């Protein structure tokens, strides 16, 4: 059929087909690698040790209200981790009215207020799949421009051979998105992804230092009880980490468990005799239990080491001396 015989509608269809053809051939020719480099790399070298098919069917679904995918996505992961909460209750904790959305930092922060440890994943597609395979739903941030805006969704499964990701997203309970399409939207958030786990669990892809900081963040946000459990699990996995022992001690201290705090700090001092913070906190904990002489021995060691906490250490020493005087 010659071009002159085509109606405008047919011609439009032909143009659309031509465009689609160009796009698809570009994908097939590997020109796609630039648009979704990690998908392309995974296709060539599939990540070892992950099951081909996973779906976390028990993860609940909260259809989002207008603009409120942040609270909905957060509620999805929090409830899956055992917290009793609704998206409505999370709105005042993450939603920013004038931005009509939720900031990434606040998604991480809000989970801590519910006694969870929030962890930002490394920007790797492989890590996303590993977390899902380990049973952890993952919140991802998509940039849907030009046809939409920023959007949080919760990845709950995948079929590696078919190249599909399953998500709880917006008003869709089980959204199936092809790996390249997902990566195309995900890439523009810098591959932003987080998990929010109960303190007994450690993410499948956790790095030692970053996981410790994540626990400390929950401790700081008033989650001493959760942090205590998480530090204990941390020390089972990475033994003899003095910073984790200090964290465990501080959590115990703020829960009023002074003997437990003392034990952890003695460990910390043994593992790192040069830790000014461990020495200072041990001295304080001993003094609080009336063991002033031993406290002074440790605080003198801390003073001899100097460093950025010298002023705080000096203050601890004078308060111990004052207490001791009061006693006599």
């Amino acid at each position, binding site marked *: 059929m010659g071009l002159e015989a085509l109606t405008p509608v047919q011609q439009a*269809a032909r143009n659309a*087909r031509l465009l*689609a*053809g160009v*796009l*698809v051939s570009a994908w097939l020719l590997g020109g796609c690698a630039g648009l979704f480099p990690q998908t392309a790399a995974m296709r060539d070298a599939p990540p070892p040790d992950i099951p081909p098919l996973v779906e976390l069917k028990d993860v609940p679904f909260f259809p*989002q209200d207008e603009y409120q*995918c*942040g609270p909905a996505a957060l509620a999805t992961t929090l409830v899956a981790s055992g917290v009793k909460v609704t998206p409505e209750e999370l709105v*005042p*904790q*993450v939603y*920013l*009215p004038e*931005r*009509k*959305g*939720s*900031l*990434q*930092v606040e998604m991480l*922060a809000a989970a*801590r*207020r519910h006694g969870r440890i929030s962890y930002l994943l490394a920007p790797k597609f492989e890590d996303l799949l590993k977390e899902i395979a380990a049973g952890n739903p993952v919140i991802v*941030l*998509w940039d*849907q*421009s030009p*046809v*939409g*805006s*920023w*959007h*949080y969704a919760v990845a709950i499964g995948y079929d590696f051979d078919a190249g599909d990701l399953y998500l709880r*997203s*917006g008003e*869709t309970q089980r*959204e199936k998105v092809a790996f390249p399409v997902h990566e195309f*939207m995900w890439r523009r*958030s810098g591959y932003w992804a987080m998990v929010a786990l109960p303190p007994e669990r450690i993410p499948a892809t956790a790095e030692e230092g970053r996981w410790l*900081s994540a626990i*400390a*963040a929950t401790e*700081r*946000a*008033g989650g001493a009880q959760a942090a205590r459990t998480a530090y204990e699990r941390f020390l089972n996995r990475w033994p003899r980490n003095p910073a984790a022992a*200090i*964290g465990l001690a*501080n*959590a115990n*201290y703020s829960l009023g468990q002074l003997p437990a705090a003392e034990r952890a700090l003695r460990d910390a001092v043994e593992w790192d005799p040069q830790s000014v*913070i461990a020495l*200072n*906190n041990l001295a*304080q904990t001993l*003094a*609080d239990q009336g063991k002033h002489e031993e406290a002074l021995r440790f605080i003198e060691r801390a003073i001899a080491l100097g460093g*950025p906490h010298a002023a705080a250490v000096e203050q*601890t020493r004078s*308060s111990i001396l004052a207490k001791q005087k009061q006693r006599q």
Partner: protein
Amino acid sequence: MKKMICRMLVLLMIWTPFQVAQAGMIGTDQVVQSSSALERSAVMNFVSRADVAGQLASMGLDAATAKDRVAAMTDEEVRYIAGKINAMPAGADGAGILLLIIIIAVIWWAWKR
């Protein structure tokens, strides 16, 4: 006058220091932070936290809510968002994905026909 008092109260509330440490004990966040971050954090507690709480409050939150929200952030996170809240991504919309799916579906349909 009443309005002014209200405003002053809001400001006062935001500017009350963010107290977390306990007397004599040095916090875990001091252990896990890098040393350069450590030097900045002392000043930070008083300046940036209140700033960020103020910025959140100016975007439609009341002072107490804004303060609670900032209190759940780490020093690093506070530094990261200070002054940039307007320019940061705010995940919001679920409708877009539908459009995207329709566009992709249309392309496929046109291709397969």
